């Protein structure tokens, strides 16, 4: 199930809230959360729920051992065992097909392999349980003595499917002690609806337009069409992913959990390095804390460490060479920035470094979008005028005009303009208590309700699926 579905908003969520708030008893609430989370997960993956349970249970024991024998070899063994098992799970389900494909390619021997559908959220929960055991091993957090409470952490439906990657130590307190007030719940509602709007109103629409261009035959594409297509994909993936994180954070707040932010206006960054401090922050910090620094960080083999981290970052996004290429692509730019570019950027106006970043990121998405690496390179070729495609064509013009407003809204929405505007309003109103309260008690709720209504209508509209039979 995804948050941006009618069944979630109009069935799962109200039922969850009713059962959750029916009693204030902490044990009851934790139990009901586990049940809801398992039901949420089982909705799409009834069988694979067992893998998540398995991962949770073994790491419960790993955590206990790592703590009990802290400083001794047993503790280290638990750590190694946890990492090995979790990575094995991840490899068997996510990367086995890819590995076999490459072995077949090199050895020219065909290996019979049926493969699995990727269990939902596996990339997230395996990382979460690894971080738990590592943090216990390092003594940064106490091991959880109750297997149920650990299971609650692993299965919590808010962040299970698409992150953020929540660390146990960040919410350890909240498992036992959550404070929910009207204000925090209301903030959760605000946040959830912002996320829903980002996903349904912007990402879905912009994504539809981007496909018009990204799925056009390369020979039929105009140069500006190629640029617009990938620009729209950049917008789509940002609104999709950050919208999903917003919904997760909002839901967390409604249920009393505070998750860390996952996005911070990445497209306003001025370097690739800064971009990654603003984009999917929970993944970046995971690799920093659990790979880069343990490898020696900036102190020794810095370049090699960077290469490893970016190789893994790419690979994490999908079992395909294009994702690895995408990771390495960022490695190259970050390396260049470290060596020379950042010095240059310090001397020239900021607008240049911003333009640099936007172009780097947009081109990066070409590698990300096309799982066929060579096709992606062909697309890049078109963008830079190879193949002599026309600069502009009617298809581009009509689509640009037909979708002008949503594209502008999406571009503005990537920047903190609205946030700044709201801040001004708040400050301006703060002198006048009456207006201030009416803004919060009336205007904002109405805005929220509008988002909910529009998103609902658009979700229903996408089910309009006329059955046609005349195309080939």
């Amino acid at each position, binding site marked *: 199930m995804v948050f941006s579905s009618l069944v979630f908003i109009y069935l799962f969520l109200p039922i969850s809230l009713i059962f959750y708030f029916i009693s204030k008893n902490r044990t009851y609430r934790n139990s009901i959360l586990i049940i809801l989370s398992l039901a949420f997960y089982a909705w799409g993956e009834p069988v694979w729920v067992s893998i998540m349970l398995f991962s949770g249970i073994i790491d419960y024991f790993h955590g206990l051992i790592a703590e009990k024998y802290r400083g001794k070899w047993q503790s280290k063994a638990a750590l190694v065992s946890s990492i090995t098992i979790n990575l094995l799970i991840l490899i068997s389900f996510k990367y086995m097909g890819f590995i076999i494909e490459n072995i077949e390619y090199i050895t020219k021997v065909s290996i019979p392999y049926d493969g699995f559908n990727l269990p939902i959220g596996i990339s997230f929960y395996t990382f979460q349980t690894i971080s738990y055991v590592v943090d216990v091993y390092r003594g940064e957090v106490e091991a959880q003595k109750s297997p149920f409470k650990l299971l609650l952490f692993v299965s919590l439906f808010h962040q299970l499917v698409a992150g953020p990657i929540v660390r146990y130590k960040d919410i350890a307190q909240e498992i036992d002690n959550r404070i929910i007030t*009207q204000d925090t719940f209301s903030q959760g509602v605000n946040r959830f609806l912002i996320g829903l709007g980002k996903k349904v109103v912007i990402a879905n629409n912009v994504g539809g337009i981007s496909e018009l261009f990204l799925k056009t035959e390369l020979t039929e594409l105009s140069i500006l069409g190629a640029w617009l297509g990938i620009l729209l994909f950049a917008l789509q993936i940002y609104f999709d992913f950050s919208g999903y994180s917003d919904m997760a954070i909002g839901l967390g707040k409604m249920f009393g959990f505070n998750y860390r932010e996952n996005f911070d206006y990445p497209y306003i960054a001025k370097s690739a390095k800064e971009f990654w401090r603003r984009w999917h922050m929970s993944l970046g910090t995971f690799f920093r804390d659990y790979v880069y620094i343990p490898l020696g960080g900036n102190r020794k083999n810095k370049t090699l460490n960077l290469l490893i981290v970016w190789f893994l970052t790419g690979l994490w996004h999908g079992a395909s060479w294009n994702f690895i290429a995408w990771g390495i692509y960022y490695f190259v730019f970050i390396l260049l920035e470290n060596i020379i570019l950042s010095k240059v950027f310090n001397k020239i106006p900021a607008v240049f470094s911003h333009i640099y970043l936007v172009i780097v990121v947009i081109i990066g998405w070409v590698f990300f979008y096309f799982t066929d690496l060579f096709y992606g390179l062909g697309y890049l070729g078109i963008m830079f005028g190879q193949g002599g495609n026309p600069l502009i064509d009617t298809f581009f013009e009509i689509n640009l005009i037909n979708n*002008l407003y949503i594209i502008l809204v999406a571009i503005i929405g990537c920047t903190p303009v609205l946030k700044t505007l709201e801040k001004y309003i708040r400050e301006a109103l703060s002198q006048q208590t009456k207006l201030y309260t009416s803004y919060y008690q009336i205007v904002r709720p109405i805005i929220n309700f509008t988002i909910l209504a529009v998103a609902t209508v658009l979700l229903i509209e996408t089910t309009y699926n006329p*059955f046609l039979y005349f195309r080939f």
Partner: protein
Amino acid sequence: MNKFNLNIILFILPITLLGFLNIIVPKTQTVSEIENRSLKSMPELTLNSIASGDYFRDFESYFADHFLMRENLVSLGMGIRELKGVKTKDEVSIVTYDGANIFESQMSLEEEIEVAILDEVKIEGLDDSFDNEKTETYMTNETETVNEPSVQQETPVEEVKPIEKEALSEKEPSSENQENIEKKVGSVLIVNNKIMEIFTSSEAGAKAYAGVINDFSDKVDSNIKIYSMLVPTQIEFTAREKYKDLSSSQKDAIKLVNDKFNDRIEPVDVYSALKDNSDQYLYFRSDHHWTALGAYYAYTSFARHTGEEPVPLDKYEVDKVENYLGSLYSITLDKNVKKSPDTIYLYKPFTEHEYHIYYEGPLKMNVLDMSHATKERKYRIFMSGDRPWGRIRTEIKNGKKIAIIKDSYGNAFVPFLIPHYEEIYIIDPRQFKQNIVTFVEEKEIDEVMFLNYVMVTGGAGFADTIRVMMNN
């Protein structure tokens, strides 16, 4: 909650209330006429469907398909979506859609019987003696087993219980068929109140189409004449001047195919006749088909090609059916088009004939089947829609037999051939289950025409269905 918080109430109340109502309000609608599909029914709860996850996926579609006031909300959603940009002076826009399918779903057996019975009611037009005589002669030389509850037995209408008939008519089209069908993305151009399919020519598609007809010619008796009639669509004549680079030249695309034919295949040029008369009502504005008038001009080209004298149009009695909103309207739900629906003009055959379609055994039909005049898909008036195969026998005893291997464009065309042939076979490669070569030889057919609209050469899909008929 101790004080009134509008933000929370405006969120919780709608989702709970709507969720609750969606569960308790009985679901009476099973078919969405405008979408031409059956709505998802409540999935069956079995261990298997739960384990595979199908139950939950189906439930989700079921929940969305039966959302309260769904059809109104869909229109509202379309309205909201129009805010995403600007339309130019001519109200030009491009709409893309998924779910363009190869096959029109077949009717169930029960529906066939129903259609046959409905048909009985309206056969009065035909002379009885002619009817019976005909029936007898070809019942004896028919090779297929006639195990249909026979139309020839003159089933009295009274025998059909009205309730049953209602239940049967709800089943069209069956949802099983819908799901096993290849889906493609297509796009249409809307200019003012005209919706037109955008055409992309394809070398591979042209090669496949010409190739399969060449192969057919190698397999059948060398005395059989083979014609190819590729019909251009409306966008070629109305929008190509202004939006030249949007849709490929269909003139070139037809030539591309014709150049690949071997010497035996005679291309019939209908392009010129349609172009010369393109100021007339040759194509529907809300549907992807041509009108009977368009088909008439193609017929005159064909008659001249074979050296026959075309029947003048004023020899036909004209009937008309108004308020037709066709397939392209149901994709776009375009407001301008809705305001000016199409009219279907029908040219009533004056030659005595009778028409049977064949699934298992013969079912008597009308060449102009007025039972569809009151339904949504009114183009099915022509030949009662796409059927695996059908045969018209006429009073013209000239011994000439032609087979038309066609897509739905053929349906408006075939009635004009009635004054020229003793037998006309109509074959739809998408549904025909026999070997076409054997069929043509067994029926002693001496002319074969491949009549399709040019869109089928945009890919290899349709050519593949013809190839399948040769290998059955």
